[in-house]
């Protein structure tokens, strides 16, 4: 065996498990996006005649919000575990931004609805609502995870001290999954909205 340093640089089991899970979720969203592209190439014009494209404003804003949220998770993890106060503060920032993202997606749905877009009308309407909806559902569940981190770690820090606190792998793994959902959204933004 080499020194303890070599083993320390290996991925922890929970991080490895997170990567496997992300590969699975990647296949899920990959399949949705592939299906969307296959449907799209069959149409001579896109969006199909009679449908307005997805407006640029709100999705662009929500992309910015989600990227910023990811950035705060990244910054929070840089403060972990050395400066817990700063960690919690940044973590909560990203949590708030994640909530804002969901609000913006809801506003986008209302805007699309008022624009007359219905999921039943054509494959375009169907994919826009279903893909953004499924992504939002994952963001919603992941937000639960983001909330869980301070709820679990704050009492842990208080009762068991910094050493036990610093062993938690939840911030890193939740952060990874949060970045992953950000990447999925950027792909959706590029394929559904921008191009």
């Amino acid at each position, binding site marked *: 065996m080499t020194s303890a340093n070599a083993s320390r640089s290996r991925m*922890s*089991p929970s991080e490895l*498990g997170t990567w496997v899970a992300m590969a*699975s979720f990647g296949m899920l969203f990959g*399949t949705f996006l592939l*299906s969307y592209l*296959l449907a799209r190439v069959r149409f001579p014009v896109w969006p199909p005649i009679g449908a307005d494209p997805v407006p640029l404003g709100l999705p662009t804003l929500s992309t910015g919000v989600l990227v910023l949220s990811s950035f705060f998770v990244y910054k929070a993890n840089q403060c972990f575990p050395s400066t817990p106060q700063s960690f919690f503060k940044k973590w909560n920032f990203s949590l708030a931004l994640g909530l804002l993202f969901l609000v913006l997606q809801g506003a986008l749905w209302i805007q699309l609805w008022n624009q007359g877009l219905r999921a039943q009308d054509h*494959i375009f309407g*169907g994919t826009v609502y279903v893909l953004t909806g499924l992504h939002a559902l994952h963001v919603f569940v992941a937000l639960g995870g983001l909330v869980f981190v301070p709820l679990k770690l704050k009492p842990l820090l208080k009762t068991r001290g910094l050493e036990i606190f610093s062993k938690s792998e939840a911030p890193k793994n939740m952060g990874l999954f949060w970045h992953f959902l950000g990447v999925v959204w950027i792909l959706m933004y590029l394929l559904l909205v921008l191009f």
Partner: protein
Amino acid sequence: MSHHDSHDHDDHIHPEPTTFISKYIISYDHKVIAKQFLFFGILWAFLGAFMSMLIRWAVAYPGVAFPVVGKLLYPHTEGVIPPDNYTMLFTMHGTIMIFFAITPILIGCLGNLLIPLMIGARDMIFPWLNMASFWVMAASGIVMFYSLFVPGGASAAGWTSYPTLANSQWLPGSGHDLWLIAVFLAGTSSLLGAINYITTVIRLRAPGMGFFDMPLSIWGLWLTAILNALFIPVLAAGLILLYIDRNFGTTFFMAASISQAGTQGDPILYQHLFWIFGHPEVYIIILPAWGIVSDLLSFFARKPAFGAKATAWSMVAISVLSMVVYGHHMFTTGLSPLLTTAFTMLTLVISIPSGIFFLNWLGTLWRGSIVLNTPMWFTLGTVFTFGLGGLTGLHLGAVSTNMLLHNTYFVVGHFHLTMAVASLLGSFAGVYFWFPKMFGRMLNERLGKIHFWMTFIPSVVIFCSMFILGYAGMHRRIYNPYEYNFLQHLMGLNRFISIFAFTAFAGQFVFLYNFVWSMFSGVKSPANPWKVGTLEWTVPSPPPHHNFDTIPVVYNGPHEFSNPKVKDRDWISQSEFIEGVSRQPV
């Protein structure tokens, strides 16, 4: 702890649960979860097999009341199986056997039991996830069972659930919606298991155990888990879109002709999604059986596994190839000739790695001191039936012959021999072999052999005869074939097949009796009844809650048999150090 310990092993032993609930119901122990999956799978397997009896009766004796329980099941038709029910029967038979029988037994039970024990770990790396995996499966089973009794009946779209058959226009009623939910949940269960299996194998192997020191059973289960993790989500995506189509009026899989003008969904898209998952699924089901067979052949030929490393690499190669051959399920959907040619070539390439490990199996047997006990008979049965199934796969992989045989009984014969009979016999080999480790008692040998012959001979006869049916042009899934003139002469052959099917079904009760009887009254098993060297046999049968008192160190491969330097016995344990035979400790 995991950061500092180079093998992530949990050195302190968790206390054993004491209450009935924590010990047997909400259990975190991989050995208990394995048993839960086993019982679950056996229950469903009997239900699925009973459905196939009804199917075989309907095909062999159309219009005749099903004996004994027919009037109870179909009071409105005096016991005759009605056509709509026939469609539900083959749908549910396929679904149940694949997702609720073979998957829980082969992957859920044997995967859970073997992975920690064979790699020298105290448990799975995420025990909570493991428990969740079983209970999600149980929920899935409840939903699927409930779907049999809803108004309108169970799903009737075939186990592949193709639109337009599965669209709400043609299949209204909640039966198919429940089917979609249940399969989604079953997939979720497999996925949770897969994350666990993959990580456990990478992280919890005992010190000294490299990847090629793992028993080939673990290789099979590990590759299966990787395929599960990657391709179950593709199925899940298809199921979600289909569910939304059926319940929220979207048109993802609805052809332009039957939906409003201009909507233009595509039913073929579903077929792509289904088979991107579906072809790996075939290997998901057979890979663990291949692994078990590769180990057991060596164990009972009392010889090292011939070319074990090549066998492992072949399984890797097949896992990779399985991702890029799915188009051969869709040759008749109007794929471009360029694609059909490509898929034909890729499919036929699979015969190279298959040929390698098949020859390795024969090489293992060659001049071995073969012990013909029940697990070995089932192992040899797996090799034989997989050989038959594999060879007939060539006809279906090549586009020119596929066009003629598509959707005929030739296909039914082929896939049953590979993913049903071969994987079932492989599961039985595993259950007979590891039953002593699970329950601390031996299964009865004589009953085991009766069970083997009552399963093996009928299976071969049934599905080889189906090649003839298919070649004669008999389509699968038709209710009464004899309404077609050109199929009327096949009634005799169909009755012949059905009689063998009933025999095979009867044979399973021999197993059931043996299983239940031996669990309570079988001969007590020693720690290592088969005299083999893999790690699970170094601990008592059944193993203690924490498996290993101390984590073993591995010095030998899993198939070290008949080494001339070891005089007193013909096997070497993986964790014993013998000067001049074992590797130097690391």
